[in-house]
């Protein structure tokens, strides 16, 4: 039984992956394997400090595939404070599904890009990289504007569809990083450019 909990600290060592660091000296007992997808709030293992077990959770803003796990396949790994327990990479998500986008427009010509299904929204490919899009950017058909994590799978949110203008300006990114959204929630507030 776990009696404590630690939110892991992420150390960005390069633009494409983050290391999740041991919060204490102790024995790391991993709960995820290399290749698995992890996301914020998920318990990825426990740390045993003199028989006291604490759950280790993924910090906010981190999501992706585990590319490296300390200790290889061992089930109990002695670690020191600051050791990289897991490396999580978001760059390796080439196989993520692209979700068909949805749109709703009001009479003023303001467009809303909405979530095609329920999930967790991420604006950037990894915590250390720039967001896919920002307010004021112009998006065009086929462009990725964010990630939606649905059942541990990351999906690209692609600006694409017959109902959408060829180009649009982003007026607002509605959810915060890591927010849970439900189908139909607005993701982006847009203004059409191509209908002028």
């Amino acid at each position, binding site marked *: 039984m776990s009696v404590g909990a630690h939110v892991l600290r992420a150390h960005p060592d390069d633009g494409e992956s983050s290391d999740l660091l041991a919060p204490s*000296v102790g024995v790391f007992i991993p709960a995820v394997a290399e290749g698995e997808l992890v996301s914020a709030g998920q318990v990825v293992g426990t740390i045993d400090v003199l028989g006291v077990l604490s759950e280790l959770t993924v910090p906010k803003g981190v999501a992706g595939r585990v590319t490296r796990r300390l200790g290889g396949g061992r089930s109990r790994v002695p670690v*020191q*404070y600051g050791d990289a327990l897991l490396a999580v990479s978001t760059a390796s998500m080439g196989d993520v599904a692209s979700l068909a986008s949805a749109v709703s427009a009001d009479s003023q010509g303001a467009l809303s890009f909405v979530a095609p299904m329920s999930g967790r929204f991420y604006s950037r490919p990894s915590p250390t990289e720039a967001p896919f899009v920002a307010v004021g950017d112009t998006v065009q058909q086929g462009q990725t504007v964010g990630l939606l994590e649905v059942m541990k799978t990351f999906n690209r949110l692609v600006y694409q569809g017959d109902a959408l203008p060829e180009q649009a300006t982003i007026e607002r990114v509605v959810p915060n990083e890591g927010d849970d959204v439900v189908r139909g929630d607005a993701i982006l507030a847009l203004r059409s450019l191509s209908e002028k």
Partner: protein
Amino acid sequence: MLRCAPVNRFRRLFIANRGEVAARIAKTCDKLDISPIFGVSEADRNAPYLRDRESVVLGPSRSSESYLARERVVQAAVQTQCSVLHPGWGFLAEDPLFASLCEAHGVTFIGPPAAVMQKLGRKTPAKAAMAEAGLKVIPGSNGVLRNVAQARDVARTTGFPVLLKAESGGGGRGMRIVRKVGDVKDAYDSAQAESLACFADGRLYLEKLIEGGRHIEIQLLADKYGHVVHLGERDCSVQRKHQKLIEESPALVLSDAEREQTLAAAVRATRAIGYVGAGTMEFLLDAGGERRFMEMNARLQVEHPVSEMRTGIDLVEAQIRVAAGEPLWFSQEDIDLRGHAIECRINAEDPSNGFSPSPGVIERWEGAAVDDTHVRVDTHVEPGYEVPPHYDSLICKVIAWGEDRDAACDRLSKALQSIRCDGISTTIPMHLAVLGSKAFRENRYDTRAVPGWED
């Protein structure tokens, strides 16, 4: 002196401390062919004294999550396969809970049994034990104070001025001098707040303040079989705000008869309480020549090299051998107390600016390897070392031996003058002023003021 074969019970020793004392303990480990493993914080992980050494990072810089985190320290010792742990001084050195935790996990704790430590760590049971063993103690509250009202009553009976002290205190923290009854409340509240913050224990006791005294302490060593010896006394009266700055042995303020009597009483009391390992009994010598027991420190002291220089006995080695179950390999008669030894504690502080802390990078550090067999330098500092702001300010100790006090003083001054330190301020200028002062040389001073130095 008879020496037995090196300790073979311990192969790997965990050092649960940092800086100067960690480097000091490792030196003896090297001599005994024991591998030292350093438990360190994030702030110390790249310190030069850890180069080519095995270390494990316990936690972040904050002591409460590294050097003071009992479970982390014991876990680290266990997972690095250490069978014995040296706590150094400060941090967890006198924490009975920590000592028990080590033993419960199969790690031998270097220090007295937890029960003895428990008794000594809280000041009032310690005083009671010493009074029972026949030592004179400082009058005051008979145990912990219940509240301010009781403090006022006891203070009136004892007579002002009095000293309010933290039950779990040390190092001058949680202490307040009270000179009149109207000040008791404020002093009580602030001492309690400080004590809670420093020791997580707000209990206070009270004793008569003896002003103008000299701080005399006895170095003791006991094995598990009831053998107790002393390694002479030390005079630690050069203090600033209850922090020792200079220590020496012998204490020339004692007559031969007084010295013999105090040493014998300390040995007797140590045996009576079932003490094991290295320990120090502190006494206050008042202006009238009365010696009263203050407290017993259940650990190695910062100033232990003073006694090592006079006796040739390595106290850390003795601690390790005693912990391994070896009997002391010498008796009182074998201990030869030679000449005079003095130690200066060099702190990263600016003595001409109210001793304000001076952390930072030591850009230049020369002359600390003094070429004199009668001078010893204990330090973890090297050029380029950064004194972290998280811990205490001790960076180096210089100890000199001489045939007599003057010879030791001269040698120490010479050694201190040869040290070149740039980048941070140190207390070296103050030490040189003290060692050269008439008041210090003539031994006319007490714990209230630093001889030869105006704050």
